[in-house]
Every structure is written in C-alpha cells, then in structure tokens.
C-alpha cells in the first residue's frame, strides 16, 4: 500500500512539474496558431514571416512584452510599449533627387599616421 502511494505521489509530482514547466518562459517564444486565433490577426501581424514563427517584428514583440493581451497593439502603440522614440527621420532615407555627385579623383593629402589611428580607434559600439 505504501509503495502504491509513493508511485502515485511520483506520478503526481511529474504531472505538476509538467504543468508548471508548460508555463516556462521559453514556451512563450513559439509561434502558435492559437495566438493568431486569439487576437484575430494573421501570423504576419507579429512575425516577419507571413506563415508565423521565427523573428518577430515590433508589434509582435510589444504584444509579448505586454503579456499577450486580447489585441495586438498597432505600430505606434507597439513602439510606445517598447519605449521607442525614433531618433531618425524616415524621410531622409528616401532619394528625392536624381542628381548624382560627380566622382572626385584621389588626391594626396596627409595626416600623421598616429592621428589617423587615434581617430579610427575611436569607433562606436562594443
């Protein structure tokens, strides 16, 4: 009797562990069709891929960040949720003129190597 009780306990423990681990964070990174059904939007709303899965875009990321509410935030809301304020002006990235600068032929200019290297060592990033 005692053994049966122990077996039962073990099975129950496994069940609990399975139940709890289902809620682990890595489960949240999988694309699930249920999510699409839940929010009534196609997979591409959240994912870069139209068929879902893989990298998420800003709207998908914001939806996960806000604990997956019933609706996916629109792009502006998403950026706000993620604390993003753009520092670039998208218009500057579009070509508006067909005039092309002519190429400048190379010239001999000089700068001390140490100064150039100091400049190059001062790069941005990690």
């Amino acid at each position, binding site marked *: 009797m005692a053994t049966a009780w122990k077996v039962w306990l073990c099975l129950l423990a496994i069940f609990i562990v399975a139940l709890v681990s289902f809620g682990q964070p890595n489960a949240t990174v999988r694309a699930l069709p249920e999510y699409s059904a839940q929010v009534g939007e196609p997979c591409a709303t959240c994912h870069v891929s139209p068929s879902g899965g893989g*990298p998420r875009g800003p709207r998908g990321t914001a939806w996960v960040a806000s604990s997956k509410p019933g609706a996916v935030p629109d792009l502006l809301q998403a950026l706000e949720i993620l604390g993003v304020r753009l520092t670039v002006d998208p218009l500057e*990235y579009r070509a508006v003129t067909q005039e092309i600068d002519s190429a400048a032929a190379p010239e001999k200019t000089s700068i001390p190597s140490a100064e150039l290297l100091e400049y190059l060592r001062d790069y941005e*990033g990690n």
Partner: protein
Amino acid sequence: MPDNLDLKKPSDSSVTRRDFIKIGATAAGVGAALWAGSRLQKGSGVSSGPAGGAAIAAQSMEESLVRTACAMCPAGCGLEVRVVGGKAVKVEGNAIHPLNQGVCCLKGQASLEVLYSPERIRNPWRQLGARGSGDWEEISWDEAIDLVVEKLVALRQAGKPHSLALVHGELRGEMRGLVNRFMQVYGSPNTISTSSLGEQSVRLASYLTQGVNGLPVYDLNNASYVMAFGGNLLESSRHVISYLGSLAFMRRGRPQRGKLVAVHPRLSLTGIKADEWVPIRPGTYGALALGMANVIINSNLYDQDFVRDFTFGFEDFEDAAGNLHKGFKSLVLERYTLERVSAITGIAGETIARLAGEFATNRPAVAMLPTEPGELGSGNSLYSAMAIHSLNALVGSIDAPGGVLVQRYPTLAEWPEISLDGTALTGLGQPRIDGAGQADIPLALSALQQLPDRILHGEPYPVEVLLLLNANPVYDLPQGGRTAQALLQVPFVVSFASTLDESAAHADLILPASTFLEVWGDDFMEGTGYAGVTLRRPVVETLHNTRDPGDVLLALAKHVGGGLAEALPWKSYWELVRYRLSAIDTDWEIFESNGNWSEMVYFNASPGSAAWNRVVGRDRRLSPKDGRYDFFSRELYSLLANPRDEDCLPHFELPATLEDVGEFAQEYPFLLVSQALITQSQHWQGVVPTLQEAYGLQSHARWTSWVEMNPQAAEALGLEENEVVWIESQFGRVQAPVRFYPGLWPNAVFLPAGLGHSSRVKWGRGSPEALVVGVNPNVLVHMQSELLSGQAAFNPTRVKIYKA
C-alpha cells in the same frame, strides 16, 4: 545612481504563473509544501543598485526572473535568469529581446557553471614567490588597490606614464570608453586590444572601401543569396543567434526560399546546414571573390547603374594631374581569370562561374566577412576582405534590404571634458609599444602579436606596468614561450582574470573580476542595424570578494587623483553607465522592465538620399565623402607613399605557406586550419563542464582535443581512427587522437581552439587527475604581422603528423 531599480514586468504574466502554481498545488493536494512560501516575482532579482548593497530576493524560496545581457560570446543576447532563494538556477533567453527573442544557446545556458565555478578566484591575490611559481597570498581590496596606485603614481612622477600598457579583449558597452579614457588621461598610448588576432582587417576593409569605420552587419532576413566566406556563421560569428533566426526564416519561413553557401576548408555545422558547402584551399578566399567578380563583370551581371553612380574606381580613370590609373574592372579581368583562380583556390572553374552567376542573379545577395580569430589571418586579410566586400557593391547590396547594413548606435551623454597635463601629453607623444602605426603597419589599430618580442627587446622602451583585462596572451599567442618570458620581464603585471588563466599565473597581482551575472552594465545591441542597448544587471549577489573591473578602474582613477580623477568622476561603473545612457529618449522604467531598449526599425538609405552619406563615406578622413563606394580606395591612395594602383585595389596575395613547394613543404605537408566552434567560449572562464561534454559536436569528442584529417590522407599515413598522433610544426608539437573527417580539404588538418588550458580543479572524465583539458593549437603557430593592416598572420601553418 538609480533610486529604485526593481524590475517590474507587466503583472498579468506573473499572476498567471502564480495561478499555475496554485492550481497545481490545489489539484494535487501534495507538493504544496515544496512551493509553500514560494512567490514568483518576474523581473525582480537584485532590488537596488550596488551602492545600496544588493538586496537579493529572500533567503527563503522566493523566486524571480532577472533580465540581463549575456557575455559568453560577442552576440550579446538578452537573458532571463531564474533565481530561487538567491541562487541562479536556470538561464533562458529574454523573449522580448530583439536579437535572440527568447532563444538561448548552450553557452548562455552553461553560464551558471561560470558563475558557480570552483575555479573562481575569490579574493585579490598577490604572488609571493617568483612569478609563475603559484605561491599566492590573499590580500584585501584596499591593499591591492594601494599596490597598483603606488606603481601608477610612481610612473607618472618619473615622467614615464607611457610605460604603462593595458592589453584587453572584448570590451562591451561603456567599458571601452572607460578604458580608453583612463589610459589617455593617465598619459599612455598603449591600449592594446586583441583585434589584430580577429576582426581588425574587416573593420579596415569597411573603412577603406565603404568609408565606414565599423564591422558590417548583414540583413539575412531579406537576402535571397548568402555567401559566407570563411568563419562559422551559425556557430561562432559575432551575431550568431540573430543570424540563426534569420537564416531559418530566409530558408523556411517565407514564400521565396533563399540560399546559403558556406565557403571554408572545413565542413562545420554551418556548412552542414547550408544549401551548399564549397571546400576551398586554406587562405584563398580573396582569390575566389575576385574570380567571381571576373565572371560577374565579364557577363555584365553587375548592377551597372549603382556601379556608375555610387562607386569609384570601377573603370580606369585619370587623376587631377592627368595620370591614368587602373580600375577594378581592368584588374579583375586581366588577373583573375577562371583558370587562374581555380588553380589558386582548388575550386573547379565551373563551380566558380556558377556561384558567380547565382550570386549576381539572385538578388538581394550578400557576401559575408568572418571576424573570428585566424579566419582571415593568412597574411592577405585586408585585400581579401576588400575583395569579398566589393562583391556587395557589384550587385548593389550596400545598405539595401537583404544586403550590408551599417550598424547604428544611440546618441549618449557626452563624456565630460578632459584636460591633459604635461605628463600625459609627453606620454601620449611616445610611439606605441606594440608598434601599431609604424611604417610597415600604418593602419594597425593594435598589433598584439608583436608585443612579446618588443617587450623582450625593450623596444621602443621598457614596459614597467602591464594590466591584462579580458585577455590571456600567454594562451592566445604563446610565440614559442616568448609571451610568458615577456610577462616575466615586466616589473609589475596585474590581471583582472576571474580564474587562474595562463597569463594571470604570471602576474604579480590578480584583481579578480566578478562574472557578468554579478555586475551592472550595458551592452550595445549589434547585428540588427538599428540602435539598441541591453542592460546588464546582477542576478545574484556577488558570490565572492570580487569586483567589476569597471569599478576597479574608477577606484584607481580616484586614488591616482588629479586629471584622472576629474575625467572619471563616477563612484561606480553603474553610475557611469546610467549617466551615459541618460541621453536615450525613452521611459527608463520600460527600459529596465524589458531589459533592453532599441529603435526596432532599420531604415535603408536609398542611394542618393540625404541619409546615403551616413552609410557610404561617412568616416573618411583623407578622401571625399561623396557617397561613392571605393573599389579603388582613395583613402589608401592618400595614405600610402607612392602607391601602385594595385596597392589601392582589392587583389590577392598568395600566403607564404602556400607558395612554398620545396623541401620544407614536403617535410610539413599538412595545413593547419582553424574554425571556432559553438562550444568554445569567447574568453576562458575556466573549464565549463557542459561545454566540455559537447565540445566535439561532430567528432563526438569530449573533455579532450582531437585532430581531424581527411581519411585519404590519414590512410596514406597508415593511421587508424582514434590513434594518438603527434601534430608538429616548426614551433612546437602536441598530441591528440586522430578523427577521420571527409569534410576537410585534402591536406588540411583541424585542431579545435579553446582547449589546452590548465585548470586548478581536477576536472575531466577520462583522467580525473588531469589539470589540463586537451591541447592548445596556438603552440603550433608563430604569428607575424601582415603589412599595412598589422593583422596577425599565421594561417595556414604547415605541420606534419606521425604516430605517437
């Protein structure tokens, strides 16, 4: 200093988690005791800044999830660490981090073994006996700081600040700025990075052609054709996690499937996962790129509008004085015919032609450069990198969707003004101890490989104090034992190692660094193109009496005093980071809660747009910022005295080891190639058992080194699989069991990097007494400096193999 750094994720989720626990407990009626008192606080681990003393979640079974930044490799993923009762118990990816989106590789997961490693040094150590004797005593931090300050003050008083040198490896976030500022204001030009062993030439190639002083990143999500020249894209590249996600998407997640081609002498996991592996003779990537350019140009498959309007030096041209110069097109058509390139690379002409055709007609196409140590280190790295990068310009993939992106960074608060005193100015006017910038290597940002010999010869002056930060030169470049000798010649060596690595063993003093899971900091998000920062925060209280090297440098600055203290006025490294990040226009609470901030959107600059000059020509110093990609590098033309046209154009130089076909080549018939593996951590943090268990993912070797040989070559030598052999070069020899591997260039051999460290702990399954796990392949090579770039040149090294 932040008042309250509690992470608070939106509450719904934690309620759900608690509900889960409650349901489980109620339904079962058992196991409740296990969870009694358990309370999951998502995101709240360490609840206050370091100055307030880290109050870790409870001594009970209180549970929390803490978001931080991984430092096990340069990818810089966001992590979410589960902490129970003040102990970190599980590492996962941060689901809302743009780079890894919840994914975490095995190295990240194994980082807890670094945190809890028995190899960690727990207190500052002073060497009592002879350097390298292992006769250490524990001292207090005050004593340790005083010892260093005394030396630093004395050097400045003697007017020799330049005789301080600092060698560093990867520095993340504000650390590089702090180190550079410290050394500059102190008055030493000798901040020497390990870049010459890795990515230096790639950075320079980007600068000399595209005019951007940065490492290129690649938009694989939108690419149709990806050609990875060298490296190990899906195991060890700088952005491995985001590239893994992007490639999966590129090949399976979108309607039009893209193609990945991996070019390398060895078939790695990247090659296995690629659509095509192209085996190539070691050291000849540049020739392949030029051969492909030949086909693309010959067949008029290049982007003619882009090349005409937004590049320079494609066609022959006349300079202002009327002198005619050769352009890229002429050079490539004359010199890099299919027959010649096929003979150099060992790749069939039809294959080169097919690859070129596919690359040019499946746009957007992108040619990727490797940054891992040794990958381009064949003495021709700069021009090879320029050649490979030029393929991107030929097909118009510069800042185009699916092409090369220019990594952006946030604008941060300005560093305070500095004033350099006379001592600092004198010191900074001295030449560098590693010779970077000297006549034969004028573009070398660093030349670490030259340091041992120059120290031993006292050139150009003796080094009096050497600081080692995230760097282990005795392991990375043994140079036949000369690096260890050089360290012994420096009167005072200080290491910031967290375990007793080979260089730290030769130090006078060890100021043990806390692990990345115990400190505050930041990490620039790289790989996506858009600007972003990941926050690093302690997930547990510092386990031992260790410190963040950032805090130690600030303490040294304060005690040295004067201009140095004024230039670095922060009380802690975290205070410095908070100051710098304060300029980011975001809600700090959200930033903390998410564990990262980023712009989320990358805008590609159309050629000719106002932003175009930020992606082409932006950083040029000597030549016009006219928005043109330089096939003919006008920077090089300006910089070099009497350059020939070829000196300014991408071209191919045969590595010296391949030129040799005489007696020496017959005695040492094999070419040792390198390729970083996913199981190799970036910096040695002690032996990590989980990584050792998986070290040879393909060879199934664990807790040991192995040497891979092509089966035909092995059989010709009469070797049996797993037989122990000697691998010997001119410079040293090591033993390892041989593994037959058909995925290897016929006369290449491969020894895994990252092994052969000595350990203080008796690890290892096969040999419980072993204090060294595997062998260090670096003992077989001798690093020279490539002309111009100063990149370490040692690949491929010739070796012979015989039975042990």
